[in-house]
């Protein structure tokens, strides 16, 4: 039993029952899950949520699942890390990192959305699941499908990092590499979804799948003591995560769980080599001009972002802003985070750190407020993004070691 009232078109408002459907039949716009918020407000309190296990199902009233979840039982509730050393470097008073680096089971925030999607696929009794992916989604769908015992078909761009391909194949998923970029893969996926009776997490399961992203916002607010932060910096590819963070904070406020009104400004981060949403925000527009991606941040390389229109709208509506980072800036961002906080993030996290720095310098982010940066994936997935030279090799002699130490500042 859930509090879902149904699906509703984000553009024309047409309502649909909560079934498998990719978009509105009239205008093809995305569908949004609608809930009985009065019922939810009556059913949950901060105390009830606080007493539940540390996973994303602690917010189950705000998620579109009818039965109890079967997979993803340990997904969510990642640490919100206070980052004083990085804050000092950046010139911020209060900085937190939402660390989905350590998300279960596949070390990226995508575990949140696949938990929703695969459980929903089970509920709909689908014979297989599939997705188009830039890597993290592929890893996560494959893992959750394996745990559920459902076959998975994963379509990826052929240029994907080898480590992410292996981390998908290992789960027994059928991986198909497609010549072209993510946007080509996504188009093919949409066409496959029309022919085969599978649950494509980013096509016909999408309205449900995307709801999982809200849990990042729920957790941030709860971990801050049921308060929304001043600023949240979010990496953007398709633009879905930042849009759902906006929805999630709004829901917590509307059902009365927050101690203060939400005034959070949303800040979007993209790679300079794939920045269609940033470009729209800079033009103060919601009109997205698609691009051909060229960036090391492959998990963000979506040139035709389906939620870009909404993402740029929410960013501007909340008084936030967006910026982009070049490939060297992304590598520097990864390194800065690792050296100051001991957290090794993948390229998308490097984008977030680099862009946060720029948004502070340009005066967009309030230095005195509470800032949260979404760190959405683990650096072990893209180790080649930070090219280090091989370490020096010495003989196994104490003199050789002492020779190396010469000139190291902190050694007396």
């Amino acid at each position, binding site marked *: 039993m859930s509090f879902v009232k149904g699906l509703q078109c984000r553009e024309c408002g047409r309502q649909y029952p909560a079934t498998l459907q990719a*978009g509105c039949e009239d205008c093809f716009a*995305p569908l949004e899950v609608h809930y009985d918020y009065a019922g939810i407000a009556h059913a949950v309190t901060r105390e009830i949520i606080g007493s539940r296990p540390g996973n994303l199902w602690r917010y189950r009233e705000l998620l579109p699942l009818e039965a109890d979840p079967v997979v993803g039982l340990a997904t969510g509730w990642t640490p919100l890390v206070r980052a004083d050393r990085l804050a000092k470097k950046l010139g911020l008073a209060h900085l937190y990192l939402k660390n989905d680096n350590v998300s279960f089971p596949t070390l990226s925030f995508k575990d949140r959305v696949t938990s929703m999607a695969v459980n929903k696929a089970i509920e709909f009794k689908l014979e297989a699941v599939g997705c188009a992916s*830039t890597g993290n989604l592929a890893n996560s769908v494959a893992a959750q499908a394996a745990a559920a015992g459902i076959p998975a078909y994963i379509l990826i761009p052929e240029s994907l990092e080898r480590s992410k391909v292996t981390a998908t194949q290992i789960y027994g998923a059928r991986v198909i590499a497609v010549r072209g970029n993510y946007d080509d893969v996504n188009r093919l996926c*949409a066409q496959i979804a029309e022919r085969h009776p599978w649950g494509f997490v980013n096509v016909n399961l*999408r309205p449900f799948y995307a709801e999982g992203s809200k849990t990042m916002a729920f957790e941030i607010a709860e971990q801050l003591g049921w308060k929304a932060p001043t600023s949240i910096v979010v990496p*953007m*590819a398709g633009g*879905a995560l930042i849009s759902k963070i906006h929805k999630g904070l709004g829901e917590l406020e509307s059902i009365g769980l927050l101690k203060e009104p939400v005034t959070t400004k949303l800040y979007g981060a993209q790679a300079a080599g794939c920045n269609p949403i940033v470009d729209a925000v800079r033009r103060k527009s919601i009109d997205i001009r698609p691009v051909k991606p060229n960036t090391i941040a492959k998990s963000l390389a979506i040139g035709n972002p*389906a939620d870009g229109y909404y993402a740029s709208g929410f960013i501007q509506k909340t008084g936030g802003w967006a910026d982009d980072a070049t490939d060297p800036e992304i590598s520097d961002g990864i390194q800065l985070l690792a050296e100051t906080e001991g957290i090794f993030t993948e390229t998308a996290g490097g984008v977030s750190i680099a862009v946060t720095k720029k948004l502070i310098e340009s005066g967009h982010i309030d230095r005195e407020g509470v800032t949260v940066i979404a760190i959405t994936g683990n650096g072990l997935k893209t180790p080649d993004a930070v090219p280090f030279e091989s370490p020096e090799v010495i003989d196994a002699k104490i003199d050789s070691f002492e020779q190396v130490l010469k000139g190291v500042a902190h050694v007396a």
Partner: protein
Amino acid sequence: MSLKVVIPTPLRKHTAGAEIVEVDAGTVKEVIDRLESKHPGIRNSICDDTGGLRRFINVYVDGEDVRFLDNLNTPAKDGSEIAIVPAISGGK
């Protein structure tokens, strides 16, 4: 010039369920004109009130998004495949 147009499921209510419609046209705009004369009402599902493509509809000529080409004026060769695909989300 004969072109093959791939119709997505939500638009097949206009084409009596046909997935492929063959038309003679030299540009994407002409493709839509011919589709409309064969299957009245379909244009309104592809184009908005200003005559441009709807925000959540992508049109591809031989796999290339027409927004990277010349939008509705994009030429189509004999034997080209025109795919009409509703936009879908992915990634972050």
